[in-house]
């Protein structure tokens, strides 16, 4: 830690030029934006891949780039799936809501002028870029070296995420402005903070698993024995237990990784709903507890996994109880969102639409999750397509909606311009309908695949419907991807030509980032340090001149505004 600090000193000296402005710039706003650009690039890359995969599934004979030219083999398809998954999960869902928006807005919202360790921050960003480069390059190599490169890239991403987690948690703990007590923290900050703690724990696990894998691949060890090793063992003794080790280690991480993607989304959505309902968050303390609960349960799901993973890896009752117990904080969050929306004068702009869309997706995706959490049902009724439909709805698409909602909300602060609202609404409705058309039939496909396995089942007539469903999904995904083109046009057009935002606080929001100009000055808060006087969600305050009181406004100033208002 100390060695890194010496670098921070040099970085403070003002320099100009391309390298210092873009590459070695340690400013948290530049780094946050860079993460967002990276995520934008990755999401479109990943989306094109999903398009290729669906076209291949619906019309297997069609000539496709990347699939046909490199040998139209099952391995290529598997590699494409892997790349799609790693880009979307690591570079988009993990990086955008936490590292992207978090880096930009966490210091602004807690009244700090920088992250705790700016040099570590820029280091983590370039490590992330390196891992993106490695992940994509791995796709074009031969399978053996490709997989090694993929593991190295994931390990680099882990290291970057650990640095980020460290930076986020320390910044939240130690760099809050005077008056920014823990109960006054915006819920976005709470979510980023809890997520950082979770990340600091789980990315270490994945890093350790990657180290073991690399040692197997490069140093010839047998920690995760390959098939030949199992073949040499007495039948039934080891074969059952040993390969499970990798799965366990991986799922320790991966189960919690779902919550790493979802936690910041929960924070963002709660924030948006409160702001655009013009109401305080209903039971704010309970939301904080629920966020902690998501982090804790998410961590324990694999923790339970871990202790049950010896020779007898079956304590499914405890495991599924824990997985189901995640429903409790999730339900609390849903209830508080509905409680906040209750009787509210809702402002239905695009950001709010995406927030409401998130709730819808979370609810429907979560319902199928209840089936998956029950081990008996999961084993009986579920095949790959059901799981694919489930986690895409609840994790992939829902988190993307949160990211889009946050982008529409913060775009004026980021660039000093607004995104186009009518275009944004068309984009929302097309995407919303599109993702349901894509992922709901996938649940059906999962049930149908099961009916093929056991013909006695009552759903046998459905099996004949498989092929048209594949075609329907592919057409739906084509439309959904084209709807994203609409977003890209909106984004690029608004970036240069969008309606300018002159005022600091166009949404009449309460948190500190809205007290500074858009985009914020280089040192965030200008000459005087910010001061915080109240909680983050003071909307519909009875005696206030306006229907909200920002966090930075001193009580005397509130009183004066009130008097002048009279």
């Amino acid at each position: 830690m100390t060695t890194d600090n010496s670098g921070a000193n040099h970085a403070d000296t003002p320099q100009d030029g391309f390298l210092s402005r873009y590459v070695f710039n340690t400013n948290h706003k530049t780094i946050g934006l860079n993460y967002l650009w990276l995520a934008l690039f990755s999401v479109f890359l990943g989306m094109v891949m999903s398009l290729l995969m669906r076209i291949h599934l619906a019309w297997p004979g069609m000539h496709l780039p990347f699939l046909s030219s490199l040998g139209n083999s099952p391995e290529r398809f598997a590699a494409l799936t892997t790349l799609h998954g790693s880009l979307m999960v690591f570079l988009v869902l993990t990086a955008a809501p936490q590292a992207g928006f978090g880096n930009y807005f966490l210091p602004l919202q807690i009244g700090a002028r920088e992250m705790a360790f700016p040099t570590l921050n820029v280091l983590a960003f370039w490590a992330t870029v390196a891992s993106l480069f490695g992940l994509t390059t791995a796709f074009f190599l031969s399978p053996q070296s490709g997989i090694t490169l993929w593991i190295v890239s994931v390990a680099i991403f882990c290291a970057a995420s650990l640095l980020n987690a460290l930076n986020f948690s320390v910044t939240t703990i130690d760099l809050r402005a005077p008056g920014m007590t823990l109960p006054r923290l915006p819920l976005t900050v709470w979510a980023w903070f809890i997520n950082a703690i979770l990340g600091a724990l789980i990315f270490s696990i994945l890093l350790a698993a990657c180290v073991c894998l690399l040692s197997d691949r490069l140093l010839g060890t047998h920690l995760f024995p390959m098939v030949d090793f199992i073949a040499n063992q007495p039948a039934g003794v080891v074969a059952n237990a040993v390969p499970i080790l990798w799965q366990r280690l991986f799922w320790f991480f991966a189960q919690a990784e779902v919550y790493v993607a979802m936690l910041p989304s929960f924070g963002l959505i709660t924030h948006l709903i409160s702001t655009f309902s013009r109401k305080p968050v209903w039971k704010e303390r309970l939301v904080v507890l629920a966020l902690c609960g998501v982090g804790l349960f998410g961590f324990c799901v694999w923790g339970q996994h871990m202790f049950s993973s010896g020779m007898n890896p079956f304590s499914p009752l405890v495991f599924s109880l824990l997985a189901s117990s995640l429903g409790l904080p999730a339900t609390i969050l849903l209830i508080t969102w509905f409680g906040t929306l209750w009787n509210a004068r809702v402002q239905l702009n695009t950001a709010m639409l995406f927030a409401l869309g998130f709730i819808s997706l979370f609810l429907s995706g979560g319902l199928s999750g209840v089936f998956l959490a029950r081990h008996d049902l999961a084993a009986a009724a579920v095949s790959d397509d059901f799981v694919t439909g489930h986690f895409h709805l609840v994790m992939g698409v829902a988190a993307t909606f949160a990211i889009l909602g946050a982008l529409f909300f913060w775009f004026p602060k980021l660039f000093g311009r607004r995104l186009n609202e009518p275009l944004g609404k068309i984009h929302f409705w097309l995407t919303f309908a599109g993702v349901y058309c894509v992922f709901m039939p996938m649940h059906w496909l999962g049930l149908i695949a099961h009916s093929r396995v056991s013909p006695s089942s009552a759903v046998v007539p459905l099996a004949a419907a498989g092929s048209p469903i594949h075609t329907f999904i592919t057409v739906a995904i084509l439309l959904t991807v084209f709807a994203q083109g609409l977003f890209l046009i909106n984004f690029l057009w608004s970036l240069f030509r969008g309606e300018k935002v002159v005022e600091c606080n166009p949404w009449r929001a309460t948190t500190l980032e809205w007290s500074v100009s858009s985009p914020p000055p280089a040192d965030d808060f200008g000459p005087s340090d910010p001061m915080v006087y109240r909680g983050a969600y003071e909307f519909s305050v009875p005696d206030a001149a306006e229907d909200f009181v920002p966090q930075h406004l001193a009580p005397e100033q509130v009183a004066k505004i009130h008097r002048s208002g009279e």
Partner: protein
Amino acid sequence: MPGTTAVPDIEIIVEDIGGGGGGPTPPPGGGDDGDGSGDDRNRRRKWSPSPKRYSTAIAIGIVSILMFFMALASAFIVLRRGSELWVTVHLPRILWANTCILLASSFTLESARRRLFLADDSGFRKFWRMTTVLGFLFVGGQLIAWRQLVAQGVYIASNQASSFFYIFTGAHAVHLLGGVGALLFVSFRKFEKAKISLPAAAEITSYYWHFMDGLWIFLLALLYLGK
């Protein structure tokens, strides 16, 4: 999680602003038009983050590193219990000497910090240098242990027990070298220009070093009991 550290400040500052009196529609972060002189503003513009951040960071870093080793240790335990054909590795004797060296280094580090507290600069430097040398000695001793195993024909790929031996010692040595780097940093850094003070740097280095010490004892016990 720390408590509400800022509460005592806020009351004083609220009075401050009340005395100064902001305008009816104050600029962001109002109260600037109080009696704050230009000198005061200059001081404020040089915002520096709380120095507590280093000790917080080392605490979170330690937890994170602990998770890394716990994942390795659980893999070790799972494989050890799952395997019928476990081949044991005879731990080289020099490991016990290395352990003593590492334990001694923790004592010299604490002695150094006590000298620092007593403002005995030369004593501090002497003990600090001694700790650094002991750190290097430990890493050298681990290398000798590796060479002894190699001489016996035990390589990293020989069997799972040997793999874990090399991975545990190797990963620990890499993390320990980070600690040696911190020791060297404290020795050679000109602290007049640094953001962190010498006692603070020495303190967090000592946390990390003692953690490395304890971690090594844990790993050694694991290897010893798991054979």
